[in-house]
């Protein structure tokens, strides 16, 4: 007990020295507090967002993985044919693989980790004389009225370019029609969605009737009202026509963010998106398959089919990220081939939104480390000087019968009390400064990140979305299977970064600061202890005499 009393007395008697140590400890504490707060804020933001994040995932063909498995690393094939990338084999594999069937999707939906499951069927159809797509290209209108080809894509399938068995249809048709398995699949119309009905109502769930809803723009453009009939034709066979009834007109605020409009294909313009039920669209696809005719091009010897091209995609919903990661394992157990991969646009978007904060958190971690190392070195040096300065005191105390260990403990207590006081003051200052400092730094990070993105967009001459999921489809070969399931804003161009954090000063940060104080005290005190233990009282006192 007297050691503590003595230590406190000694602190008061060497104010100058202890204030100096205190200031250094204070600087370390404030810096450490801000650093820890930033890290804590990042962690809290991550945890709280992940807790509330409803994760959705899709299964898609892992083209990149297949290419790398096939040795496609950019090597040029050798003369004997070895090495390099085998384009023919790859094309063949792509043709064989394609997307999964609905039955397969449903099998994977049986995994325990899945909380909800829905799917969509997409197809591309052309309009008719009285029903034309909305297009910004003035040349579209005249040629589209023919009903066979998409004028904005000269040389499209109907125009004689002849893609491969309808696979390129989506890029050259007038309309993109999506059939939803149920109301839950229409995420754009959910409470936090971007779309809403302005007239009429959404078609009945699961109906086989040819009911559809169209965009306000499309309705205005063609002077269509609820209850009117619209006619579509198969782009591969103009004689194959289907008549739908417009039961609702909708508007979508995210419409202008569609990254696919750059392709110039009218079907990719969100104004030309028509929604119906899965059952209705499936009926059309089946009918088209039944009446399909296969032709062979005499010049290229390639086969073409008039079958309506369609694509099915499924979305799995999970309650949390753990379930999502579990699902990745479950689908493999349920037999999903390695050629397919599970991905979540929500998680990617979340990771993107966290990017500036995570970067700041990492920087804060390094900053903290540097501060601690430099701070510890300064404190050690100061303590060595202090102990040398107090050599006589050590000699007297040990000559009086105080054990060296107790003398060292007293010195340690002094450092700890000073450091603790500095940490308490530092925690208060740091707690107050953490939010503004962190937000200012975060703003810089966001600005820097946004500038990079803007520069990329500028370089591309259009919106580009790296890592957001859509970039993978920029080749325009097929309609992305999950374009409608991904919440708007998550993929549409620039990421929505976390731009502000609240003060993350909590018990964890306080405990961490306390840990730092103890660590610094121990590091600095250990050196003091070594010096104290080394001193011989007789030598000290004799030399003084």
């Amino acid at each position, binding site marked *: 007990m*007297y050691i503590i009393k*003595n230590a406190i*007395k*000694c602190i008061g*008697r*060497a104010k100058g020295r202890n204030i100096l140590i205190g200031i250094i400890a204070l600087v370390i504490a404030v810096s450490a507090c801000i650093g820890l707060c930033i890290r804590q804020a990042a962690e809290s933001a991550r945890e709280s967002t992940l807790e509330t994040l409803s994760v959705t995932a899709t299964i898609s063909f892992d083209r990149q993985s297949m290419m790398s498995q096939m040795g496609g690393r950019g090597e040029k094939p050798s003369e004997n044919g070895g090495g390099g990338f085998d384009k023919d084999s790859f094309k063949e594999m792509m043709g064989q693989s394609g997307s999964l069937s609905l039955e397969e999707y449903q099998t994977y939906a049986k995994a325990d980790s899945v909380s909800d499951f829905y799917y969509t069927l997409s197809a591309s159809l052309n309009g008719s004389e009285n029903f034309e797509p909305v297009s910004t290209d003035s040349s579209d209108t005249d040629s589209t009225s023919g009903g066979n080809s998409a004028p904005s894509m000269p040389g499209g399938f109907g125009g004689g370019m002849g893609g491969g068995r309808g696979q390129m249809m989506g890029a050259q048709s007038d309309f993109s029609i999506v059939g939803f398995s149920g109301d839950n699949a229409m995420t754009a119309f959910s409470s936090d969605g971007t779309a809403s009905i302005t007239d009429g109502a959404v078609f009945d769930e699961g109906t086989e009737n040819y009911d559809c809803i169209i965009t306000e723009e499309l309705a205005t453009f063609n002077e269509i009202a609820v209850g009117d009939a619209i006619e579509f034709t198969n782009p591969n066979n103009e004689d194959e026509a289907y008549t739908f009834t417009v039961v609702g007109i909708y508007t979508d605020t995210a419409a202008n963010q569609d990254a696919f409009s750059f392709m110039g294909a009218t079907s990719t313009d969100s104004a030309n998106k028509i929604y119906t039920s899965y059952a209705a669209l499936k009926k059309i696809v089946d009918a088209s398959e039944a009446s399909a005719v296969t032709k062979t091009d005499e010049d290229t010897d390639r086969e073409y089919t008039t079958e309506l091209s369609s694509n099915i995609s499924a979305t799995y919903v999970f309650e949390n990220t753990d379930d999502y990661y579990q699902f990745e394992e479950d689908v493999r157990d349920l037999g999903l081939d390695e050629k397919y991969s599970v991905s979540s646009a929500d998680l990617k978007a979340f990771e993107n939104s966290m990017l500036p904060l995570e970067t700041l958190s990492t920087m804060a971690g390094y900053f903290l480390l540097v501060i601690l190392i430099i701070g510890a070195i300064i404190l050690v040096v100061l303590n060595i000087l202090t102990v040398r300065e107090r050599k006589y*005191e050590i*000699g*007297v*105390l*040990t*000559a*009086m*019968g*105080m*054990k060296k260990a107790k003398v060292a403990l007293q010195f340690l207590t002094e450092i700890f009390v000073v450091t603790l006081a500095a940490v308490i003051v530092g925690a208060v200052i740091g707690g107050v400064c953490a939010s503004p400092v962190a937000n200012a730094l975060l703003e810089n990070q966001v600005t820097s990140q946004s500038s990079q993105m803007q520069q990329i967009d500028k370089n591309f001459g259009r919106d580009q979305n790296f890592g957001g999921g859509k970039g993978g489809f920029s080749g325009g070969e097929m309609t992305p299977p999950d374009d409608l399931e991904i919440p708007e804003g998550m993929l549409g161009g620039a990421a929505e970064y976390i731009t502000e954090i609240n003060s993350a000063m909590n018990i964890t940060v306080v405990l961490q600061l306390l840990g730092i104080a103890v660590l610094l005290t121990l590091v600095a005190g250990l050196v003091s202890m070594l010096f104290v233990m080394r001193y011989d*009282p*007789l030598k000290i*006192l004799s030399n*003084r*005499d």
Partner: protein
Amino acid sequence: MAVLSLKNVCFSYGKTPVLQDVSYDFEKGKMYCIVGKSGAGKTTLLSILSGLAEASSGSIMYNDKDIKKIDKYKFRSKYIGVIFQSYNLLTKFTALENVVLSMEIAGVKKIKKAEKALELLESVGLDEDEANRRVLKLSGGQQQRVAIARALSYDAEIILADEPTGNLDADTQREIMEIFRSLAESGKCVILVSHSAEVASMCDECYELKRIIQKNIKRK
């Protein structure tokens, strides 16, 4: 019966012998003086007696127990009170704090240590105001008194004093010696180290340390 006895104690600094076969007995209730010329090893002997230095050979018995078998910190803090020539007080502490700290190191159980310390300081001639003054602001004689009070604070049986009157004027010297006399009369063993004949004359017994003349073989 001797409270402290030295048997054939030798000590050397490296190869230089300082003490050789020193055998003394010290009893309670007596005042001893160890005299000798400069360099005779008086202070060295005091360091050995106080446990700050260890004899090269021979034994030192405290109440018939070899002090090597006693914890040296415990020996210094409880059984022996040392008054150093340069006082060795904690200069940033007050006189009172120096005495109280000494009691705390010794583990004195008294609750009112400050009162006891004040009494001791008064007994050696320091009033309350002086007791609460920082040591550095006290005169040499006052510091000597603080050192004596500190040595008495834990009621040690043996009091060792190195040149206790060396820096003091005649009156103070006399007063200090009277304090030592009264301590001896109260039953303590007081051992003074001095080269002063006057101090020696006031003690009950004197031991003279002779300087060891080292033969220089090479020169021979």
